[in-house]
């Protein structure tokens, strides 16, 4: 793999050709402009600016309490801003009450009205709009068809399974054809298998309707699968906005690298190279040198950095690999067999634990690595990312 270019290519993006954020002069559908939100003494959103474009499937990803839900609820109109502006299609929506905003939300709890059947639930927003009755009926039927719930129209929410409720909630939120659909942890209440299926269904529906989707989630897998772009949030700030591929392969900070996927971290200092050269040599704390690409060419000798390497980009072998730039010796500490993958936890001679995964490409390995066996962990210079913060 060549050194990645600085501009975000659509690495790993869902739709390679869809990248409105790269079109110069294109104005966003949603703009959060220097937004702050204070609850008492705590700053939930801290001077945040973010653009979301029409037709995007956008994910706000972050640990609980990072402010992602608050940001979404600002757009829905349930939270007031302390500072800044929220623009929807170029207009400040500060004074618009929730019920007048062209934005609908799928609640985390689904918030289906327990005293109304599925049909009434889906029709609720349309009734508020004052739509004609036959139109409502047609729209409800269309929505239920979209989420494959036609045969459940007369059921009450408590007679539905979790997955069915999720579909009804989706249909209800989409019925008014909102400009933006907000989804608060849309798959959080579903079990793993259903969650994966539903992810793909949500993507299909989004592409079919062309509606802008804004999803809040703490589940990085969910975000990676569905989103065109992801904004990773931490402590009320956006720490990186990029396509899933860039987020994963070129995390902007140690927080992003650790939050999205697994990563091995080595804290070290730049010793050789640097200053305009395409690679840097870093001393590991036991003295062994690492050689890592520095595509941005910004490192200086003496910089404190962390080297981050994804487990699947490392190799573990019984013999010392020839011609490999970075080789670390250690012994097998733990083995986790996952079926498709095997996870090795290797204890290096300096005591650090490295996590290395290996795809189980063949059904049987002749002599599988065993516990406490001496091994070598290796990775290429372009497999690692150097992070300064």
């Amino acid at each position, binding site marked *: 793999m060549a050194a990645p270019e600085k501009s975000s290519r659509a690495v790993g993006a869902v739709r390679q050709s869809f990248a409105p954020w790269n079109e110069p002069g294109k104005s966003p559908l949603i703009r959060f402009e220097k937004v702050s939100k204070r609850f008492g003494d705590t700053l939930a959103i801290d001077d945040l600016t973010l653009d979301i474009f029409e037709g995007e499937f956008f994910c706000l990803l972050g640990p609980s309490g990072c402010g992602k839900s608050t940001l979404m609820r600002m757009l829905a109109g349930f939270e007031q801003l302390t500072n800044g502006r929220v623009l929807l299609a170029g207009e400040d929506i500060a004074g618009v009450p929730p*019920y007048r905003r062209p934005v609908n939300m799928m609640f985390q709890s689904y*918030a289906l009205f327990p005293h109304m059947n599925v049909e009434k639930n889906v029709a609720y927003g349309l009734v508020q709009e004052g739509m004609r009755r036959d139109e409502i009926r047609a729209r409800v039927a269309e929505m239920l068809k979209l989420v494959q719930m036609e045969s459940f129209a007369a059921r009450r929410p408590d007679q539905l399974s979790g997955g069915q409720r999720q579909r009804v909630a989706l249909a209800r939120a989409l019925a008014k054809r909102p400009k933006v659909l907000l989804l608060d942890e849309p798959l959080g209440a579903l079990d793993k298998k259903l969650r994966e299926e539903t992810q793909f269904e949500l993507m299909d529906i989004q592409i079919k309707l062309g509606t802008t989707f804004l999803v809040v989630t703490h589940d990085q897998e969910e975000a990676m699968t569905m989103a065109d772009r992801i904004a990773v949030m931490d402590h009320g700030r956006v720490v990186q906005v990029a396509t899933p591929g860039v987020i994963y392969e070129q995390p902007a900070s140690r927080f992003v690298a650790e939050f999205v996927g697994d990563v091995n971290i080595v804290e070290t200092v730049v010793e050789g190279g640097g200053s305009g050269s395409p690679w840097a040599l870093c001393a590991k704390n036991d003295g062994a040198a690492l050689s890592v690409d520095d595509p941005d060419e910004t490192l200086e000798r003496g910089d404190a950095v962390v080297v981050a390497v994804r487990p699947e980009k490392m190799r573990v072998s019984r013999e010392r690999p020839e011609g490999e730039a970075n080789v670390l010796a250690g012994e097998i500490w733990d083995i986790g067999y996952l079926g498709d993958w095997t996870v090795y936890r290797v204890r290096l001679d300096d005591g650090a634990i490295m996590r290395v995964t290996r795809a189980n490409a063949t059904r049987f390995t002749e002599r599988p690595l065993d516990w406490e066996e001496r091994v070598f962990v290796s990775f290429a210079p372009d497999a690692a990312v150097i992070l300064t913060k």
Partner: protein
Amino acid sequence: MALRDRIGRALILGAPFAWLGVFFLLPVGIVLKISLSEQRLAQPPYWPLLDISEGWEGFLAFLADLSLENFLFLWEDDLYVASFLSSLRIAAVATFLLLLIGFPLAYAMTRAPRSWRPMLVAALILPFWTSFLIRVYAWIGILKPEGLLNHWLLSVGLISAPLQIIDTERAVFIGLVYTYLPFMALPLYATLERLDDSLIEAAQDLGASAFKAFWTITVPLAKPGIIAGSLLCFIPIVGEFVVPDLLGGSETLMIGRTLWTEFFGNRDWPLASAVAIVLLVILVVPIVLFREAEARRLEMGR
């Protein structure tokens, strides 16, 4: 199951069952029996119960003695019909007033900061723990012609002559609303408290104004509380004695008072029993409804 556990089980169920059977069910049966017998001037002032020593003959004689005379009398005498109708009307109006006052109060309590709420609930329950009689009595001093309310209104200059409030139906309504407010507000609070906030948000998100969300979501979902609270007030108010007796004066007709007078004043026990039976029959439907509602509420709490 071990024998000891079986005995324990039988005791735990048997003791309260037996108590309520002897001291609640049986007495109601006796009331029914006496309502069908005739008054006599003696102690006890009615013809005696079934005499088992006379066997089958006695039982037949007992059946032959039963008469519907008391009930016919009730039906023919305007006083009783009027008392029943007036009780039902007063109870219905009072329940409506209670709902009108209790709902905003209960709703406001659920909107209060979470840390205040236990205190507000305690404050709502506390008057309930203090004597009913005293609470009614407190209003006499306020409402009577030379009472505090008139005194204050006169001194402020809002009125020029004392208002006659006590000994009217207005005083009865004030007293009823006052004494029964916790019974209405608490079940309402309990259901409104459980109401998921995101349902209201969802309604607003779908285009309903706060007012509309209230009527289409909050009120329908508070229905169990509204029903429980209303029945919890309506049923005892129909048979209420203390409030109309102390605040209502002679012009307020309520069946509880009529029964009391019949019993203690005229010593016509069979007629009083007949009044009680009719009252019971009128209240059976709301009582059954209340029981159902309670059972559902407990079921939901699970």
